[in-house]
């Protein structure tokens, strides 16, 4: 069943739409929400959105995981042509490697953010960002 909206196939571009939606939700939380925890959660959602976007870019229609496991090679001799043929049916591995790194980095930043929230809470006894704004412009 094809669903078309603005001439786009929704099923196909669902990934992009979801990724962008996640990014927008994350941005909304970071910019509007008042509770520190919600802001950090927003950051996390933002990261997820971007990572999803990156992986979607690497998708190849009908492709399989870029792993040359025994079931894929199936006793074929390891020549350049054979490998090339197999690799044409594989998904792009680079976005996956990039996202691996990006997820870990995002996690590191979230951990630091949460430790700052803990310290802010210790100091001000509140998580409301309006009451914490001591520093003026």
């Amino acid at each position, binding site marked *: 069943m094809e669903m078309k909206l603005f001439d*786009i*196939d929704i099923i*196909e*571009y669902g*990934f*992009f*739409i979801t990724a*962008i*939606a996640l*990014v*927008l939700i994350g*941005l*909304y939380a970071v*910019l*509007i929400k008042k509770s520190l925890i919600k802001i950090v959660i927003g950051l996390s959602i933002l990261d997820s959105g971007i990572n999803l*976007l990156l992986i*979607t*870019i690497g*998708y*190849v*229609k*009908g492709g399989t*995981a*870029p*792993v*040359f*496991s*025994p079931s894929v*090679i199936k006793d074929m001799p*390891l020549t*350049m042509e054979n*490998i*090339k043929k197999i*690799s044409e049916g*594989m998904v*792009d*591995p*680079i976005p*996956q*490697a990039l996202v*691996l*790194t990006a997820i*870990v*980095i995002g*996690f*590191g*930043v979230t*951990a*630091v953010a*949460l*430790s*700052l929230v*803990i*310290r802010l809470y210790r100091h001000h006894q509140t998580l409301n960002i309006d009451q914490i704004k001591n520093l003026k412009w």
Partner: protein
Amino acid sequence: MKRILVIALLVVFGIYLAQALFMLEFGQQFFESGVKDLYLTASPLKLKVANTVTAIVVNFRGFDTLGEVTVLFLATTSMASILYKGRHKLGKRTVLFSASNIVTTGSKFLFPAIILLGAYVFIHGHLTPGGGFQGGTIVATGFLLMLLAYSDYKVSHIVLSVVESFAGITFATIGLFGLVYGGSFLENFLPTGILNNLVSGGVIPIIYIAVGLKVGAELTGLIYIALNEKD
């Protein structure tokens, strides 16, 4: 008022971005030839590593992984620095409620299984999907389970710190050996073996095991710092 403005801005941003992205054909690559073409052939043929993503993460783009490992190290150091409270580094935990019997008994069985799974994942990183980061996270989850089940579970800070440092030193040193014996930093200098064997890929599994241990130690340390911060 501010809310409406922000929403409007976000909607505009989203539409603009979506418009650009929809110009890409989903599932088709736009470019004629890219770096990945070489990666997909060189990984099984030259490096004898079955999991291409691992080959990219540890070898082709190993420098990024070194940076990433540093980021994790920095995150742990930063967390300890930000939450530091003076002489008494670690306080007592806030325990909201004790875990039930099911949890305490079950976790004793699950813990070794989880550790084994994690170790399996990072040792076989070059053969199956997975690797150092994934395996290390699983190991840390095992520790998290124990920390949640037993309110007095202790992990030795010193052991974690030593494992972390040693793993990091191993990674950097292997890289430097690559410079000395191979000609460039992080170059593979061990024999690569046969594809799909456990011992294959030269230094790649060794690096990934070090990364797995490091990540496991670091994440456990992170959890431990956060749990014990309340005096």
